[in-house]
């Protein structure tokens, strides 16, 4: 049963008005392009080119390094300048292919397909070959998601159109400007699951999208639009499944265990491009926004472009930013250097003139229980954070610390400004590492 919402959650200032009404603008990249070999969950891609090779737009330059992996394509034409470690948004150094852009944009030929005439296997193969991964942030290879053990048990294919992170408007623009591609992409995915119905799950703060898409799917028997209550983190996979279907899954389960497949807007459009047009994943929409940017807006970006170029396209900085975040303010990564490439999972670049975190000081916990109230994972964040700080791994796991989805609601709401999510997050990493080492 659809609940259209979930228990817990918060309502932060959404900041979407800054960039919401700015149409997508295509940026022509200049200079070097950097393609990290790990832009997804799973094995890094394996380079297929070497230094000095000439590459074309749409040419595969790195192949998948395993089943859970994804290939990477050049988005410009030019020569491979180097293959070596480069800094990425998370701060890590990741092996990358660097291409010297010759500015000609010579492109390979693509073969389009009629999705109706393709076998299921062929569809999945096309998606796999195109390097499509979850573009909402996690970067889980889409072909893996679309290949559950028992595809006939999938009853829902949910298009995650919630975009619950504050400031982000990239999915919104995609829905407004290319709604048909989204619907067609969803139809392609539905071809894979005979018993599934498609749901476009949209937060009700986007009534124009709801209206537009409802009109488009009016004659689609298998697709419906569902308006969800606007609340962060409505777009979190588990909360979204619950809101749409009333089914709960825990951290050790897959959406498929609840008969669901969940894909984000941009991912579904990428599926459409991959299958119908035969085009690999080369572009994505990035929202460049925040009060430090001159002209906040949405860009149609070639993956591999430098973040500095995005800022430049957005008119540069109005005021010096204190904090620059890749992604939204609740779950994004704070950057210490803007000299990093855009990747398949880069949804936004948020530049803030004020860092609310360093301006506040941690006080003692007064046990107010606000973190418990907002926690969508229904754990007790303040106690888990204490256990994490004491490095009490056993108690942490026994008290469901691993069920935390790191959404950040507890840290956001805490009146004592305690770093709850942060403590829990690092403890979760420790536990996962220890488990890996034991194996």
């Amino acid at each position: 049963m659809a609940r259209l919402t979930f228990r817990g959650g918060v309502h932060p200032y959404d900041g979407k008005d800054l960039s919401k009404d700015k149409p997508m603008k295509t940026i022509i990249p200049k200079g070097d392009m950097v393609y990290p070999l790990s832009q997804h969950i799973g094995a890094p891609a394996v380079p297929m080119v070497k230094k000095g090779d000439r590459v074309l737009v749409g040419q595969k330059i790195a192949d998948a390094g395993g089943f859970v992996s994804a290939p990477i394509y050049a988005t410009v034409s030019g020569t491979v300048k180097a293959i070596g470690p480069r800094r990425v948004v998370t701060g890590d150094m990741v092996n990358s292919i660097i291409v010297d852009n010759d500015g000609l944009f010579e492109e390979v030929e693509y073969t389009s397909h009629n999705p109706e005439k393709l076998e299921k296997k062929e569809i999945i193969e096309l998606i796999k070959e195109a390097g499509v991964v979850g573009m909402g942030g996690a970067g889980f290879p889409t072909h893996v998601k679309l290949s559950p053990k028992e595809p006939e048990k999938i009853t829902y294919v949910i298009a995650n159109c919630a975009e619950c992170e504050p400031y982000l408007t990239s999915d919104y623009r995609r829905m407004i400007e290319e709604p048909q591609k989204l619907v067609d992409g969803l139809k392609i995915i539905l071809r894979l699951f005979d018993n599934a119905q498609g749901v476009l799950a949209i937060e009700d703060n986007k009534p124009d999208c709801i209206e537009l898409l409802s009109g488009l799917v009016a004659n689609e028997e298998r697709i419906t639009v569902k308006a969800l209550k606007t609340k962060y983190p409505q777009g979190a996979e588990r909360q979204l499944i619950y809101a749409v279907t009333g089914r709960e899954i825990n951290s050790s389960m897959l959406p498929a265990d609840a008969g669901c497949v969940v894909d984000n807007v941009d991912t579904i459009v990428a599926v459409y491009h991959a299958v119908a047009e035969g085009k690999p994943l080369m572009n994505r929409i990035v929202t460049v926004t925040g009060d430090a940017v001159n002209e906040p807006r949405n860009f149609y970006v070639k993956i591999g472009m430098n973040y500095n170029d995005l800022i430049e396209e957005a008119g540069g900085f109005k005021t010096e930013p204190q904090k620059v975040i890749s992604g939204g303010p609740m779950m994004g990564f704070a950057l210490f250097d803007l000299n990093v490439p855009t990747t398949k999972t880069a949804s936004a670049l948020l530049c803030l003139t004020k860092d609310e975190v360093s301006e506040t000081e941690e006080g003692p916990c007064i046990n107010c229980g606000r973190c418990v109230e907002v926690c969508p994972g229904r754990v007790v964040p303040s106690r888990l954070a204490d256990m994490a700080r004491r490095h009490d791994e056993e108690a942490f796991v026994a008290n469901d610390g691993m069920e935390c989805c790191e959404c950040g609601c507890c840290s956001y709401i805490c009146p004592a400004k305690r770093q709850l999510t942060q403590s829990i997050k690092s403890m979760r990493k420790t536990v996962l590492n220890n488990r890996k080492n034991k194996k």
Partner: protein
Amino acid sequence: MASILKVSSNPHIRSKASTERIMQYVVIALLPATLFGIFNFGLNALLLVLVTVATTVLTEYIYDRCMKKKNSIGDFSRSFSGLLLALNLPPKAPLWIGIIGGVFAIVVVKMLFGGLGQNFMNPALGARCFLMISFTSIMTNFECDAYTGATPLAVLKSGEGAVKLSDMIIGSTAGTIGETSVIAILLGAAFLLITGVIDLKVPCSYIVSFVVFLLLFSGKGFDIEYIAMQLAGGGLMLGAFFMATDYVTRPITKNGQYVFGIFLGIMTGIFRLFGPSAEGVSYAIILGNLLVPLIERFTKPTAFGKGKKGGARA
């Protein structure tokens, strides 16, 4: 870029809520009851409030200095315990009672256990019970210019004399400084409910379970006036909305808060009906405070999706 970017783990934004703001609201919410108490009982009540609050603030300040502790939390949280204690004192009590109580509340109940957020029982109530045991005659003498000594609950218990329910609701009866006026207390409670500082889980389960207990065991059956007087009398309203809801000393889990409230209702009923004293709220609450860790242990929320079965994540 000239300056250095700040880096931290997510989330990068914070809500406007702050501990100091919450404490400020709680103190503001106590003002109607305080002002009514001073108006009702006169100069000594005013002096008691001032002395007790000053004592708690000063004691905490000195303690922090001696222990070389840094305390970033401001004066509202320091004065809250003092104000609550003062409201629980008889209006004619000598000022040194306020001083001793204030020092006990801060040093013994609060600071020795780690200060704000660490105390295992409500400091004001801990101090009140300490004073009740140590200075029983002073703490139970409610005689003052306006009223004879008997509190409405004592009258109700002994059956001698009469008190009007309307007087109890307005507050013109004998009692501690802050407990007499139901209207003033509910005004403050409404403010806390509207601002989201407290919710109804603890107060409601407390009051409802107390009423149920009375219906079952008072021997008066469904006597509306008797029940209303029990509710309006003594420290029940002040206790239910301002002391049982104290964040630090109530369970953090939702179900735990219901259990806690019900426990308080039953204990208050037992103390009031079967105990030697007419009053029982203070003891019920500090007893409840001690059970909080146990209650929390058995009311741990079920994590989202827990117990659901499915193939393990690859």
